């Protein structure tokens, strides 16, 4: 905590203005620095991609592919950002995506067609979120533990359902979503879903009472409780929200891959957490940035793409990811401490 300094008073007892720029400019300035840094990193990556693989990387199809790949993990990350802002964590997102995707692609579900698949994916996601939320909000379990248990069980159940087999999707409506014919002005429908989730997520976090309560609970749960906020209910809703995002992501993944597999969504939890953190969301809660999270996702997806195009090993790729996380946190700490 920094020193508190009361504004100097003059003889009339009125406050003299505080030194320095007005608070809004300070805040805006910091937000801009963060966003610009992330955009800068992304631009640098695009440059690297363009230089090393001028034809393959800058190809429209490749860029569409990158965005489509980012969409699945991106939707998960938006939900994760809310959970982290509230001071929680959801380790089960990858497993929920797997379970939703396989449940939505069983032979029985596919008989109900497009909406059967969509509905099942979302209901399974929300259902898992409900279990997480009830355990955490009402069972007073630590989020790390509750969602770790969900990670294990949901993956297990996904394996149980598929018996390790790939469940191929035969419903044309779903498969069409990922086809080029469905692109609107060159934008794949999956990317549009991602964009919509991002915009809605930003609005909810920054412009609604739900978002405010989330921030309040994450910033100081005891103060939020004593201010009359129903902290437990808010926590429940947040895990439901994360589950919902997982359900949507699972549907996107099913459309993209044309199948459901119990290995889907592997390590999504770590990618989503990493993207949120480099986007400027505090792991301790109380502050979060949807846009930063989304840029984080785009950065990671772009790196993966560039490495793949250059035929570099996954190992190198993962080392690069780790380095970026460390660098991003160090840069942010420095900008934060200059305040």
């Amino acid at each position, binding site marked *: 905590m*920094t020193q508190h*300094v009361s504004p100097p008073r003059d003889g009339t007892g009125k406050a003299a203005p505080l030194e320095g720029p007005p608070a809004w400019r300070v805040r805006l300035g910091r937000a801009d620095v963060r966003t610009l840094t992330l955009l800068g990193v992304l631009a640098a990556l695009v440059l690297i991609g363009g230089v090393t693989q001028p034809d393959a990387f800058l190809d429209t199809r490749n860029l569409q592919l990158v965005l489509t790949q980012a969409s699945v993990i991106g939707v998960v990350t938006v939900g994760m950002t809310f959970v982290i802002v509230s001071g929680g964590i959801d380790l089960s997102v990858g497993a929920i995506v797997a379970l939703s995707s396989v449940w939505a692609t069983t032979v029985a579900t596919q008989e109900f067609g497009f909406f059967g698949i969509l509905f099942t994916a979302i209901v399974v996601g929300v259902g898992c979120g409900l279990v997480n939320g009830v355990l955490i909000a009402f069972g007073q379990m630590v989020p790390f533990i509750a969602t770790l248990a969900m990670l294990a069980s949901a993956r297990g159940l996904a394996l149980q359902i598929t018996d390790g087999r790939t469940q191929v999707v035969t419903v044309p409506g779903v498969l069409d979503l990922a086809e080029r014919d469905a692109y609107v002005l060159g934008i794949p429908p999956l990317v549009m879903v991602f964009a919509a989730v991002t915009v809605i997520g930003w609005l909810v976090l920054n412009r*609604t009472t739900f978002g405010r309560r989330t921030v309040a609970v994450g910033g100081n749960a*005891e103060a939020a*409780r004593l201010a009359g*906020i129903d902290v437990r209910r808010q926590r429940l809703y947040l895990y439901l929200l994360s589950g919902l995002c997982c359900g949507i992501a699972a549907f996107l993944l099913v459309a993209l891959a044309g199948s459901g597999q119990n290995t889907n969504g592997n390590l999504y939890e770590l990618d989503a957490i990493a993207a949120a953190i480099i986007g400027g969301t505090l792991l301790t809660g*109380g502050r979060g940035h949807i846009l930063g999270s989304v840029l984080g996702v785009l950065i990671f997806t772009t790196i993966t793409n560039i490495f793949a195009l250059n035929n570099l090993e996954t190992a190198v790729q993962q080392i690069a990811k780790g380095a970026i996380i460390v660098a991003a946190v160090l840069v942010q700490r420095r900008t934060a401490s200059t305040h």
Partner: protein
Amino acid sequence: MAPQPPLLSMSGITKSFPGVRALDGVDLDVQAGEVHCLLGQNGAGKSTLIKVLAGAHQPDTGTIRWRGEDVTLRSPIAAMRLGIATIYQELDLVEHLSVAENVHLGHEPTAAGFVVRAKAAKSSTAQLLKRLGHPEIDPGRLVGELSAAQQQIVSMARALSHDVRLIVMDEPSAALDPDEVDNLFRIVGDLTADGVAVVYISHRLEEIRRIGDRVTVLKDGRAVAGGLPAESTPTREVVALMTGRNVEYVFPERPAAAPDGEPVLTVEGLSRAGEFAPLDLQVRPGEIVGLAGLVGSGRSEVLETIYGARKPDTGRVTVDGRPLKPGSVRAAVRAGLGLAPEERKAQALLMLESVTRNVSVSSMSRFAKAGWIDRGAELGAARTAVRELSLRPDNPDVPVRTLSGGNQQKAVLARWLLRGCRVLLLDEPTRGVDVGARAELYAVVRRLADEGLAVLLVSSEVPEVLGLADRVLVLREGRVVHEAPARDLDEHRVLDLVMEGSPAS
């Protein structure tokens, strides 16, 4: 003072943080064996100065001389090696370690360089605790199980476990009862008799008179007076130096006629085992009722139980004749209760957020349609509330953490004002609020009462309860031992009551 070279001599110390000049050329001389008091309002620079002295902050300019030699305090360890120990207001103990482990943390007695000699640590800790007048604290107990006062003793034992020549104490009496304060002063006396210097920070002028030798007054990052004699400097002069004004705290006038409406808040037979016995009280609109009692008398617990933050074992709380759901903060808030809790930063404020958001947090739905917040309306309402309480700075967009203690308290009051609350529960409303801002806060509370709010006030400062409240309930060990109009009581009477429990005359 004898003209020997001072033990410590800081001169021209400056320290800036972005946007703030916390210290602006401060000088401080401390002699061996003296109690040197540091006075100043919140934000005057006391904390920064002692952090520089503790090696936790590096000064931008200025020199520090220790026993006549220039030194640089690069780190807390460097300061400790010289013999400077600091006991911070917020204790820095590890709750899950034992008393002895805490005392010897970082300099454990070891065998073969790394095996901790637990027995030796325990026995030396026991000796220290005995010297501090608290042999009853078991060195093997976990620090988390101790009371706040006991933890402070442990903190002091830790300071003494080093070879100290100077101890800095930051408001050590804030969490202590009178007899514990007496013990603290005895310890300070013993230390100075041994030639150890004490730098003592306190808001309480009467304490400084009792134990202080000299006083340095800080204001706005400058030492406006150094080395004043603690006993003979008139209070008026000290207050004037601290505030730049010539007033002690003034309590607002009570209304001519006592409020006689129907009670808005009624508490009947409310109790919690081990905290407070069945308690009845009523507060009328426009009335301020004070609960006086020592730390540990159950005052805060009473307030928190009324507010629903703790579940009562027996009894009930009614607002306007309608009983509240026990143990539900939300029910209490909906019924029109508002709490300004004792630990403002931990229990009330969202420190990362702006004043606006701190003020609006309890009435967000008023500015929202279908969950969508009308930020213009929110800001307007926050601005009005902030103006009404003359919160400074009056721009509600600033982060709440940049405000002084008094203005943070006003932000909490503004929250309940905006909510339209009818019963205000104030728990130690002026803790951490500087002298100059207190009178203003008192006036605000009285004005809110005059506007029809019912106020229930808890304070460990008897003059505050007597000066502000209309009616006073004296609490001792969880029981109401006396109830009377504030006019009919004086400080001595109340202190007799809280300590003896029998109405003395």
